């Protein structure tokens, strides 16, 4: 495959055609924050945290779904980007009800970590307080829609790693939400294999093991990494 040469934050790099901006940046030790991106499943550009500036294009583009091109000039951490990333994080917090103090994922949450590492000491927007339900009908797992950021990681691992296709996104905009099968209670889903990959993939406390209480929910992400590694590299390394 042809190599492409591009500039990231003033450094010239070359990478194979077809790679995404995110892959190339990470390969060269340039960290771009992500939330919906998950190694092993395709990217959807849902969270907008990985937005980058591309010279000559007025819009900001998500690094995870933008392919590199010859002569591309990228900025990954400008003041403008920092401003938008902080704004995105604040909007995520304002849109549903993220109450870290009483959350199962307190201390193990990617949203919480990104917020403080981006200097979000408060949210400037009014909180929406939408009325979302908690589905605890499943034997093993629960889903609290109040903590969901609609990253669709659970949908992607369910379809493309487990191959069950239980989880889907229903609705649009602020009323979008994660459903099981034909919008049934999780416990009545015929297709769910109870594999728990959705719970492992969740960046927040939206999906959790039943019985876990505040700060107890650890996502066992290494189990997912093991499967992805085995599938992509044919290496079964624990």
């Amino acid at each position, binding site marked *: 495959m042809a190599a492409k040469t591009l500039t990231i934050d003033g450094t010239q790099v070359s990478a194979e055609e077809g790679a995404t901006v995110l892959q190339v940046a990470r390969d060269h030790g340039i960290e771009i924050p992500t939330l919906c991106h998950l190694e092993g499943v395709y990217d959807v550009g849902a969270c907008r945290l990985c937005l980058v500036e591309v010279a000559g294009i007025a819009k900001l583009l998500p690094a995870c779904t933008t392919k590199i091109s010859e002569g591309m000039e990228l900025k990954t951490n400008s003041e403008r980007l920092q401003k938008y990333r902080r704004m995105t994080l604040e909007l995520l*917090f304002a849109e549903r*009800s993220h*109450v*870290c*103090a*009483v*959350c199962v994922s*307190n*201390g193990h949450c990617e949203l*919480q970590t990104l*917020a*403080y*590492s981006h*200097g*979000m*000491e*408060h*949210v400037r927007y*009014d*909180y929406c*307080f*939408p*009325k979302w339900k908690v589905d605890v009908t499943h034997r093993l797992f629960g889903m609290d829609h109040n903590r969901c950021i609609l990253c669709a990681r659970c949908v992607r691992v369910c379809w493309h790693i487990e191959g069950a296709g239980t989880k889907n996104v229903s609705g649009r905009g602020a009323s979008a939400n994660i459903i099981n099968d034909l919008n049934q209670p999780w416990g009545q889903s015929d297709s769910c294999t109870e594999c728990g990959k959705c719970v492992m993939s969740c960046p927040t406390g939206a999906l959790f093991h039943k019985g876990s209480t505040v*700060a107890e929910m650890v996502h066992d992400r290494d189990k997912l990494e093991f499967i992805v590694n085995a599938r992509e590299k044919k290496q079964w390394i624990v």
Partner: protein
Amino acid sequence: MDRLKVATVWLGGCAGCHMSFLDLDEFLIELAGKIELVYSPVVDVKEYPENVDVCLIEGAVCNEDNLEILHKIRARTKVLVSFGDCAVTGNVPALRNKLGLHNVENILQRAYVENAQNNPAIPKADGIVPRLLERVTPVHEAVSVEYFLPGCPPPADRIKALMTQVLGGKEPKLEGANLKFG
């Protein structure tokens, strides 16, 4: 130089932030030499004084009393610090906002009537029991706030970091894990 006039106030919160403040241990002694604590739940002063330099505000804005004293505090204080997650985000007290427009009636009914074993009745005493606001808000939605000190509660080290910066005449700036909610 005059000692810094510091106040702390407790709105709709659990007092955990104040407990964490007391957890400053020997730093409290150092602090006592450098500040004058002019108003606080741990000081017997009834009226919020004039010309306060810094006020740490614990708790969300839940009732009419909270709102009234907050406006008084803003008018009489140079620097306001939202102290802990309830003040910064609304946190647990604000969860009732989810119940919609009639959340006040609903939660009072639930707490004082449905779950009451003796004398079920919603407390009503004008001028004594402050009325709940329809919507609980973080402090900065009610008045302007200079600095934010998140945490539920903010650990003593975090409070110390902020107070040290304030006492050193620096612009307080917390970073990284010192800004962690929860």
